[in-house]
């Protein structure tokens, strides 16, 4: 499914979102590994909430726009054997649903730990370990999801959509039309990228501005 570098599509900008999500997950894992008995959870709680807001927004936008687009590509309601595209679409739809459910469950698990502990003044070793494991599990579930998107979803959608459609998909992924601050997601992504990538996504932001 992988395309050559020379075949870059507009939708490939989605990898910036993936990069930002991966960076945040790794930073948070490192922060929780550094926690010691007696520390407080304020910083972790803020970082986690920020990561999860972006992740959940991304999961919802992917489901609503990217996966919906794939569904429309599926010929007929039922599976027709020996059809390469249909088989891949079914595989991806199931996988995305499975991975999304797993991520949401893991987010809930972490929030339960944070909410129980947040009122307390200091942490104990056991809570730190549960938090470490919860965040590691979410990071792994996220990685499975992003990797599947990169392997299956993005190449398929690029193959079956034009540049304007892809730009619209990106708009839904990076701009939150229902929020007072509609650009919070793209700002979040920019805030988690290095300077080279920031330049590239800023160019995209200008293209999206013309769409809004």
């Amino acid at each position: 499914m992988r395309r050559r570098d020379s075949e870059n599509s507009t939708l490939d900008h989605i990898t910036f979102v993936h990069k930002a999500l991966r960076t945040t997950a790794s930073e948070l894992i490192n922060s929780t590994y550094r926690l010691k008995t007696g520390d407080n959870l304020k910083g972790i709680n803020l970082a986690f909430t920020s990561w999860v807001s972006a992740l959940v927004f991304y999961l919802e936008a992917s489901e609503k726009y990217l996966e919906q687009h794939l569904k429309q590509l599926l010929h007929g309601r039922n599976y027709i054997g020996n059809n390469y595209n249909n088989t891949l679409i079914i595989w991806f739809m199931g996988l995305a649903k499975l991975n999304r459910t797993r991520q949401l469950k893991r987010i809930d698990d972490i929030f339960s730990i944070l909410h129980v502990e947040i009122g307390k003044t200091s942490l104990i070793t056991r809570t730190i370990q549960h938090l470490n494991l919860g965040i590691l599990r979410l990071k792994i579930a996220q990685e499975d999801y992003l990797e599947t998107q990169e392997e299956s979803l993005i190449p398929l959608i690029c193959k079956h959509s034009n540049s304007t459609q892809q730009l619209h998909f990106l708009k839904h992924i990076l701009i939150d039309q229902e929020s007072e601050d509609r650009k919070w997601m793209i700002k979040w992504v920019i805030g988690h990228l290095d300077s080279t990538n920031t330049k590239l996504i800023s160019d995209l932001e200008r293209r999206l501005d013309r769409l809004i």
Partner: protein
Amino acid sequence: MKNEKLILDNPLDIMPLLHKAFMTQSIRNELLLASSFTGRDLVLFQKHFELSERLLTYHINAEDLYMTSQILDSPGARVNEDEHVELRDTASDLTAFLGEADSTTLENYVQETILASDHTNHDEITETTEDILNILSQTIGQPRIANRKMRDLYERVVALRFLESDHFENEESFISTQIIPNMPRDKQLEIVKHLLLDQSCLNSRWIIEWLMTRFDSDDQKILNNLILLL
């Protein structure tokens, strides 16, 4: 513990030292697995993990048999045994997963995915699974599958370590507050003897020998002093 004399107040005070050695071994396994990610060669990890599982299984079986089962009418003892069941299950699931061929992992994964998909009915599952497996073997390939399996394995190894850690903490508290104050010294020595000497094995001292390679010099002296009493 009277560290200055390197002699334990009570024989069962050796327990935190044993647990510390087990935890160190688990952390080593985890680091070993993390360093195997690139090469995906699990031979060394598997060897170390098998030893950890053997040690852990022997230890918790001996505790059930010679320590908690002797204490009737104690909710703490029953909780301890329940935690041992969970540890045993988690460790054996991990071993089974580790021994699973990549093709089995992939097939299970694909079937789980098809079941989650609302685009197929039950009759189509087999056909779809076969088609997907064929496509995946051509497109994604073994390295991707191996990546996923490695991540899954790593998560299980960390989860087992935290489960061990929680259990050891509970057990140490149970032993120090409920067992040691109520158990005569000779009875404690009897339990420790079973924990350290595996009579079912040709080399009954294999646990002691392993501990000696993990303990620092002070802990080695404490263990040696205790062995003299057995």
